[in-house]
């Protein structure tokens, strides 16, 4: 092993000498950048346009970001780049469904490829007429999905799924949303969902801001859940490892949150009842009015504090309209009233 370490040390030195020599011989860094860039293999940007009647967009791509734009146009157009040898693209309209598929051929020893492709070349841009309401079923294996609009946009049901990549939704009003990602975040800003919003992330955070929704079902294996100014009928949130934070939100029915490892922080949030549980983590509720809370609080290892008063590790009350049920295995429970 010592000999091997010495050989590797000599090789590092040799590499350094070669690099320095190359620099003095006139190393062209711009040329090197071009060498490592593989954009050329994708050729010119391609455009696909259809004027047929479409109400559903179905996209299934393997290695592309999907970016949706709403434009003043009667036609649907798609811009994309296709790899000269590896990509297979299919476009078609049938029964009002516009289908786009991209398959990438797996090349043996492709893992030894050092070249990178720019973000733009890896993106599929979809331009849709802004006065048509579309149903979206978009999925990508590697890439982000972006439905981010400058102004409020009405759509039909949304189903967005990315294996490795994030899902972004902004300024959208839809009957339902189903957002999933294996590795990546889910970020929703300023949206209205008349039915249910289901968001699931295996590794990645879920962040919802300025959202109005009926039923909210959130699931994250590893990653935090953050809700800010959310109005919903009910909330069911489940996290294996990660925090749950809710701020300035309002729920007509129950709030049901469970985590395995991670705290729960609820600030200035209204609900008809709270059912919170965590195996390891602190639970903190901060509200302007806690007088109507009926407590059922338990912690196996930790302390319960209500407005600074230590209540031991078990505390329950019998009056109050809002049931606050918190079960913690290891962690503190803190309820406090603020202005």
């Amino acid at each position, binding site marked *: 092993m010592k000999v091997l370490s010495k050989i*590797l040390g000599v090789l*590092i030195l040799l590499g*350094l000498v070669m690099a320095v*020599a190359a620099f003095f011989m006139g190393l*062209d860094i711009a*040329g090197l950048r071009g060498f490592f860039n593989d954009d050329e293999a994708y050729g010119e940007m391609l455009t696909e346009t259809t004027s047929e009647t479409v109400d559903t967009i179905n996209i299934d791509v393997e290695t592309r970001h999907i970016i949706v734009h709403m434009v003043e146009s009667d036609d649907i157009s798609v811009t994309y780049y296709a790899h000269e040898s590896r990509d297979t693209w299919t476009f078609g309209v049938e029964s009002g469904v516009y289908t786009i598929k991209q398959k990438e051929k797996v090349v043996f020893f492709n893992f*030894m490829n050092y070249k990178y492709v720019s973000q733009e070349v890896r993106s599929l841009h979809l331009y849709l007429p802004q006065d048509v309401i579309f149903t979206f079923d978009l999925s990508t294996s590697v890439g982000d999905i972006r439905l981010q609009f400058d102004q409020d946009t009405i759509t039909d049901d949304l189903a967005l799924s990315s294996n490795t990549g994030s899902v972004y939704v902004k300024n959208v009003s839809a009957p339902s949303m189903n957002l999933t990602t294996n590795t990546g975040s889910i970020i929703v800003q300023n949206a209205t969902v008349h039915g249910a919003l289901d968001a699931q992330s295996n590794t990645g955070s879920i962040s919802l801001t300025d959202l109005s929704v009926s039923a909210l079902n959130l699931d994250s294996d590893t990653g935090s859940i953050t809700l800010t100014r959310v109005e919903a009928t009910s909330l069911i949130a489940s996290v294996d490892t990660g925090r749950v934070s809710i701020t300035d939100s309002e729920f007509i029915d129950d709030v049901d949150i469970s985590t395995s490892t991670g705290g729960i922080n609820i600030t200035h949030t209204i609900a008809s009842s709270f059912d919170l549980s965590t195996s390891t983590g602190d639970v903190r509720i901060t509200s302007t009015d806690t007088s109507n809370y009926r407590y059922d609080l338990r912690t196996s290892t930790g302390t319960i504090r209500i407005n600074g008063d230590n209540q031991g590790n078990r505390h329950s009350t019998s009056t109050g309209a809002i049931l606050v049920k918190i079960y913690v295995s290891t962690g503190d429970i803190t309820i406090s009233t603020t202005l």
Partner: protein
Amino acid sequence: MMKTWLKELERALRAKFYDDEVKDILSYYEEIINDRLSSGEKLDAILSGYDVKKIVKDMTPEVLMKRKNTSMLRVSKSTRQLLIVLLGSPILLPLGIIYVSILIFVMSMMITAFVLVVSGLVGFAGLLVDMLQTSLSLPNILGVLGMGLMTFSMLILIALWTYQLMALFWRKLIVWFSKLAHRRGEKE
């Protein structure tokens, strides 16, 4: 009679321990028995107090504590024996679970180090192939190969150090957990 018992003990010890360890244990028991005989105790009474199987079981953590695990073969043998001790007793079971968890981490890191070495070699080979087909100028080829050589050599070096560190940690684990098992055994 004492020789027969010692032979029986030796047979049982040889199935588990190395020669030097067997010798140490045999001489230890021979000395104890002789001491007790000289203080007037009867051989039958002394030997009836000893159970060969129990001696082997009880001595295992102590032997593992002192064993020099100089090769991977010895490390794996010691690990196997320690696992049997830790997982075979309800009192030591929590310790066994912690040991297994740490062992999984150590092995994962060793596998990662191995994969790093392989990917470093394959990666550099790929870079060489790329350079043979490229239209880059000589300084650029030299520069890429130089930087590649540095990067992949460092990668392999880090992998080797990780492997060595994990191997050392594995050996230490055997000693630490044997000590813990021995202490718990003494308390019982």
